[in-house]
């Protein structure tokens, strides 16, 4: 999904270019994505994509004032910032501007003094709060109120009633589950329950409590003890026979086009959905959240951002590019149907120790090889990649390591990168892109795994395991 910046002038972009090099993720669902978008669980030693990890909310923050907000407070304020507003016309952030107005002094009504009056203004579409008739406030922040929804009370009552209903349903469900699994460990809730979609927003706190405990201890922060026993009764909605008739000049009145709101402007204010631009009031800015990712199999965190909204760094960042060697396309010659051509690829080693990489072409009938439209001949010899040396640029005296590369296979070698050739024979004629796939097998040293108390003394290095990944390359269309 892509978003255009509002200041962009020019043609809209063409279809986004397809990703050139994609890796296959063997999760519950087989997804293919470029390595830059994948994560690597070093406890399971497998690639993970965004679809096979669980996303959890880490913290909330406002994108314009960068103020952090605890989750409970965010829920209370409906995930909106208290200080910042959005322009109802173009959804930009509103800024507060001040003007000087003459106002009578409090002591002496005859003299006038300049007092500051504040109003909200949008820098992009020049909307001001005076356009909808909101009076200027005398305080810079905190004076602006959103208009009250006349149906708030009824909605709140309905929400309470349904929350209670959901709570009761969940208790019954869990009681049944516990009755069936009496022999199990007292770990009350299975993995399944934690991931179950919660109804009506009760909160995960309640899910983690132990079942069988008395009802009162299950009360969340919002309910007091004893109140949850009380039944909430709501009146059912009543259907009316008469509906407000349309105005008489509905069909004949000429439309004042600047006054009509667009659908987007209207739906951003679901409480009122005004049809006229003079009733568009600014809303508080929506909060954004930082999320952390967790591997579903081993429950380890794959990505955990910093808590501070102003920091873009991560506490834990297990991205695939820093563990798996990356294949990139360097140059593609003219590809012709059924003619063999050489494509130059590069392999980059992200880790600091020496890595051995073997490429294997896909066999006939490989279930993972679905999309390829060309035959590929990969180098049979094992490729050796030097480790990534951070000081390589500065260390002029370092001797270049001698690897004795076969010049037919290896085109060049530069610190931790190597360029090599593969031979491609396109098998399909026509407009489709030439797609090539092969398997890449490399050794991975797991530095995260705990060093076992090994009987073999002196085994200080961690053992290497061999990982195999399925890579697909998109080489573009055939030459005309």
């Amino acid at each position, binding site marked *: 999904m892509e978003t255009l910046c509002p200041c962009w*002038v020019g043609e809209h972009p063409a279809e986004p270019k397809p990703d050139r090099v994609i890796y296959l993720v063997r999760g519950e669902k087989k997804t293919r994505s470029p390595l830059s978008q994948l994560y690597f669980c070093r406890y399971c030693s497998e690639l993970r994509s965004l679809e096979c990890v669980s996303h959890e909310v880490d913290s909330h923050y406002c994108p314009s004032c960068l103020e952090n907000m605890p989750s409970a407070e965010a829920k209370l304020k409906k995930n909106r910032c208290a200080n910042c507003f959005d322009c109802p016309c173009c959804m930009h952030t509103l800024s507060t501007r001040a003007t000087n107005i003459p106002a009578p002094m409090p002591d002496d009504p005859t003299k006038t003094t300049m007092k500051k009056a504040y109003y909200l203004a949008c820098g992009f579409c020049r909307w001001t709060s005076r356009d909808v008739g909101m009076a200027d406030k005398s305080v810079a922040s905190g004076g602006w109120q959103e208009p009250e929804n006349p149906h708030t009370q009824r909605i709140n009552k309905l929400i309470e009633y349904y929350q209670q209903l959901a709570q009761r349903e969940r208790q019954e469900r869990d009681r049944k589950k516990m009755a069936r699994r009496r022999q199990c460990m007292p770990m009350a809730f299975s993995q399944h329950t934690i991931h179950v979609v919660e109804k009506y927003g009760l909160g995960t706190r309640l899910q983690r409590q132990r079942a069988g405990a008395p009802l009162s201890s299950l009360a969340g922060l919002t309910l007091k003890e004893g109140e949850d026993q009380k039944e909430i009764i709501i009146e059912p909605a009543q259907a009316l026979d008469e509906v407000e008739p349309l105005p008489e000049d509905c069909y004949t009145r000429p439309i004042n086009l600047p006054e009509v709101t667009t659908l987007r402007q209207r739906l951003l204010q679901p409480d009122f959905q005004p049809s006229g631009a003079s009733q568009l009031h600014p809303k508080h800015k929506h909060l954004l959240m930082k999320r952390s990712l967790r591997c579903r199999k081993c429950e380890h965190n794959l990505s955990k951002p910093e808590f501070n909204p102003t920091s873009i760094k991560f506490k834990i960042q297990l991205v695939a590019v820093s563990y798996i060697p990356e294949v990139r396309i360097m140059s593609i010659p003219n590809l012709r149907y059924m003619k063999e051509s050489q494509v130059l690829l590069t392999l980059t080693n992200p880790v600091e120790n020496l890595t051995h990489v073997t490429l294997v072409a896909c066999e006939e009938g490989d279930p993972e090889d679905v999309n390829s439209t060309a035959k590929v001949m990969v180098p049979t010899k094992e490729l050796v990649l030097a480790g990534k040396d951070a000081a390589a640029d500065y260390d002029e005296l370092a001797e270049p390591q001698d690897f004795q590369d076969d010049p037919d296979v290896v085109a060049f070698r530069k610190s931790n990168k190597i360029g090599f050739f593969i031979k491609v024979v396109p098998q399909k004629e026509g407009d489709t892109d030439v797609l090539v796939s092969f398997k890449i097998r490399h050794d991975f040293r797991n530095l995260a795994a705990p060093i076992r108390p090994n009987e073999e003394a002196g085994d200080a290095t961690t053992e290497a395991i061999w990982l195999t990944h399925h890579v697909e390359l998109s080489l573009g269309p055939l030459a005309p």
Partner: protein
Amino acid sequence: MTDLNKQIPPKSAKIATGAVVCVESEIRGDVSIGARTVVHPKARIIAEAGPIIIGEGNLIEEQALIINSYPENIMPDTEEVEPVTMTIGTNNVFEVGCVSRALNIGDNNVIESKADLGRNVSLTSGSIIGAGCHVNTSEVIAENTVVYGASGKRRVQSEKPQPQTLQLDFLMKILPNYHHLKKAVKGGTTPHSGWAAVWVHNLALGNVSLLP
């Protein structure tokens, strides 16, 4: 009279006293600039296909281009084309890098950076053409209209934009400290101009000799 106008095309701009026009700005053709107007360096005002009349209190920023050019389908030398005057009113702001070919611009308009106005657009008063917006329809834009967004969305605002008096005052004090200004020139080739123009006119006709 019209023949003489063609024989002596006016070369210098008519700059009223009180206008601040920097020397680094490029003013070509018959341009008259009103009082309290500030023209920044590197602004370009080019009157090719007719004169340009700029009113008072305008602010023309750097790299703005106000051009009265021939419509695209007419070559300059083929036919005799009537020169069309471009009129710009008072208190307008032409922000950095905008291009304006519009023939009629009223008062209190703001043309934001990198906006592009076509020849047939007419701005009345209080309009704001947003940054980067291209407006080349042939229409009269109503009062207090704001054009914004990549797709040229429009809306009507309730009040006209504030005139930039503070900015103008500041610039009129500061710019002369750092730039040479073009001298205020009165007169030109209009029939009602002063004695200097009449003298030049007679000189061209050969009625007056330069030798003492």
